[in-house]
């Protein structure tokens, strides 16, 4: 499957943190052509394995982790007229919600619109403020009896957004954070078909990242990798954001530096990028929170960890935008990195 089609299919599917089954299934199906085996753990992580050619006794184990869950909303209350009040799952800016179309995952998937008090009945002060989450509701265009027959408190909700092509190699859609990362893992697995690698490669689609990097916690424990690489998205440049916090779209994957990144892994990734003429960017992360790398690094007795990211604009909105070339280049970078890892290199990661 072409990587763009894969990303499109994942983006258009729904998998709010805790209910990622639909995504897991789609990933398993496509990864199937490139891996030797796969399993799912108790939290729902999809753990796939592509075996390396190294000696069984000292084969390095490399884990690539990208999360498949997405932010969403949850039904909190059904009012007397059948309007739904809701809360958020994961970090959502309330200002991105008014006027959105949504899908409510009740007994059936039900379409709705996020409404708020109409502007002409808001007073002057209200009109100057952002509409608060508590003043929004979902209108299903149905009466209360129909609504109660279809929807229950606790049902999950996602903003509706069809993946779309923009100019050049750019695309936009929801949940590209981090299904773009999963796509980079696919790109890497494809590259590995034609490369020799000693290491066993675990491609992991992790769950529940958005609510506290939980899937990476258990999957890393189960795999016990020698090297863990989290693949996620980072902020793309845009007006109103300082360029020290962002990377440019289309200029290559971002190799991160920071407390959660093992310096030797960073250095090697950079050297591989240079050697294979893959354009890359350097990102800095002073606080190790916010990606699967945070969980991987402190698993068991500690795992050397790296973070490779795809620049993405408008993170956690329904119109996340990125350049497909960054995913492709990242896949090549990871594959070439993997093919050059041997047990000696892994040994060296413990020597500071």
């Amino acid at each position, binding site marked *: 499957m072409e990587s763009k089609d894969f990303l499109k299919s994942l983006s258009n599917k729904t998998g709010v943190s805790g209910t990622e089954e639909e995504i897991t299934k789609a990933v398993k199906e496509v990864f199937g052509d490139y891996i030797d085996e796969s399993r799912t753990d108790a939290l729902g992580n999809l753990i796939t394995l592509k075996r390396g050619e190294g000696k069984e006794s000292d084969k390095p184990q490399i884990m690539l982790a990208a999360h498949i869950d997405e932010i969403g909303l949850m039904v909190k209350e059904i009012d007397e007229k059948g309007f739904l009040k809701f809360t958020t799952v994961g970090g959502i800016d*309330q200002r991105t919600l008014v006027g959105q*179309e949504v899908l409510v995952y009740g007994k059936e998937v039900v379409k709705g619109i996020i409404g708020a008090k109409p502007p002409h009945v808001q007073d002057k002060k209200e009109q100057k403020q*952002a509409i608060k989450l508590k003043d929004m509701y979902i209108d299903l*265009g*149905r009466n209360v009896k129909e609504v109660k027959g279809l929807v229950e408190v606790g049902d999950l909700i996602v903003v509706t957004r069809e993946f779309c092509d*923009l*100019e*050049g190699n750019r695309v936009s859609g929801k949940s590209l954070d981090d299904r773009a990362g999963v796509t980079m893992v696919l790109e890497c697995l494809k590259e590995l078909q034609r490369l020799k690698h000693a290491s066993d490669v675990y491609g992991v689609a992790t769950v529940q990242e958005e609510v506290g990097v939980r899937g990476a916690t258990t999957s890393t424990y189960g795999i016990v990798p020698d090297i863990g690489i989290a693949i996620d998205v980072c902020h793309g440049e845009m007006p109103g954001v300082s360029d020290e916090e962002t990377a440019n779209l289309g200029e290559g994957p971002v190799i991160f530096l920071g407390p959660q990144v093992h310096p030797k892994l960073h250095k090697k990734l950079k050297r591989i990028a240079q050697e294979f003429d893959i354009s890359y960017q350097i990102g800095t992360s002073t606080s190790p929170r916010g990606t699967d790398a945070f969980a991987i690094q402190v698993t068991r007795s500690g795992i050397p960890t790296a973070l490779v990211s795809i620049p993405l*604009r408008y993170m956690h909105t329904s119109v996340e*935008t990125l350049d497909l070339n960054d995913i492709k280049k990242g896949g090549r970078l990871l594959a070439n990195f993997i093919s050059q890892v041997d047990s000696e290199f892994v040994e060296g990661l413990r020597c500071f």
Partner: protein
Amino acid sequence: MLLAELSEAIGVSGAEYEIRDLIREEIKEHVDEIRTDALGNLIVHKEGDSSLPTLLLAAHMDEIGLMVTKVEKNGLLSFKPIGGIDKRVLVSKKVVVGKDKIPGVIGAKAIHLQRPSERKRPLKIKQLYIDIGAKDDKAAKKVVNIGDTATFATKFSQLGPKTVKGKAFDDRVGCSVLMELLRNDYDFPLYGVFSVQEEVGLRGAGVAAYDINPDLTIVIEGTTASDVPGSKEHVYSTTVGEGPALTMMDMTIIPNRGLMQSIIETAEDTNIGYQFRRSTAAGTDAGRIHLLKEGIPTAVVSVPVRYIHSPASLLNLDDYEATKNLLNEFCKRLSSGGFNFEKDN
């Protein structure tokens, strides 16, 4: 469904090309004369008995939208609103730009990069851009120009058993009702106007009606329904599901009492449920038309629509049918000379 096509067609005020072509194609078979005027209004005529009053039915075909005002160095498009748009509904939406419908998105700074206090203030239009994915201004200018208009990329679809959602129901629902009525034959001379530029100050309809000089006018609208949480029942302007809304007064018109009365009588006699528009805010093309020349008896009949001027609005199909039926019954009665109008009413 006609309304689906009308809703998905684009036509921001001043750039009503696609919607006008669509309407023209659909109705040309059913009318005796069809023309456009200097502003772009689409005017149709069905001949009739000149001893009966000439009726004008009008609906505006333009919609609110955005206009590209600058192509930034980084390829993003700056824009300004056309018509009344609450800037708070723009964030995180998909749009299409220009005649070629180039897809674009309106993004916002990621929540991770904001201070919590920022989330209490709406984003200003100046802080928002349309991103068409162009890597710089050169790439952007290949597909868009300054002055291009943009509108929401919203698909029409059924919501509940009785409700549908789509963009621009204000006033594509009026266009749809009018188009269906034009398929019928009545005895009186009938004009239909699909007006331009209503959303930027009722610019089109008055010009179109000037030469027609009708004896009576009914403007068919999609009007705001505020029967939603956060709004108290006594301030509901209209309620979805309670039938066509008759305007008693708004910012631009006090409708002709005689005409209003005859519409109400028609509804009562034919058992069509109706409601009054219980708000005096805003205005419609009727505001222009009723002041033409020495005055033209004019009324406004509307389909209630929730979330007008937003990416997705909602209406009830029973309201739509009832509005069409009411106007059809009115026209039938007008055909048979059932009303006693004086031109100087």
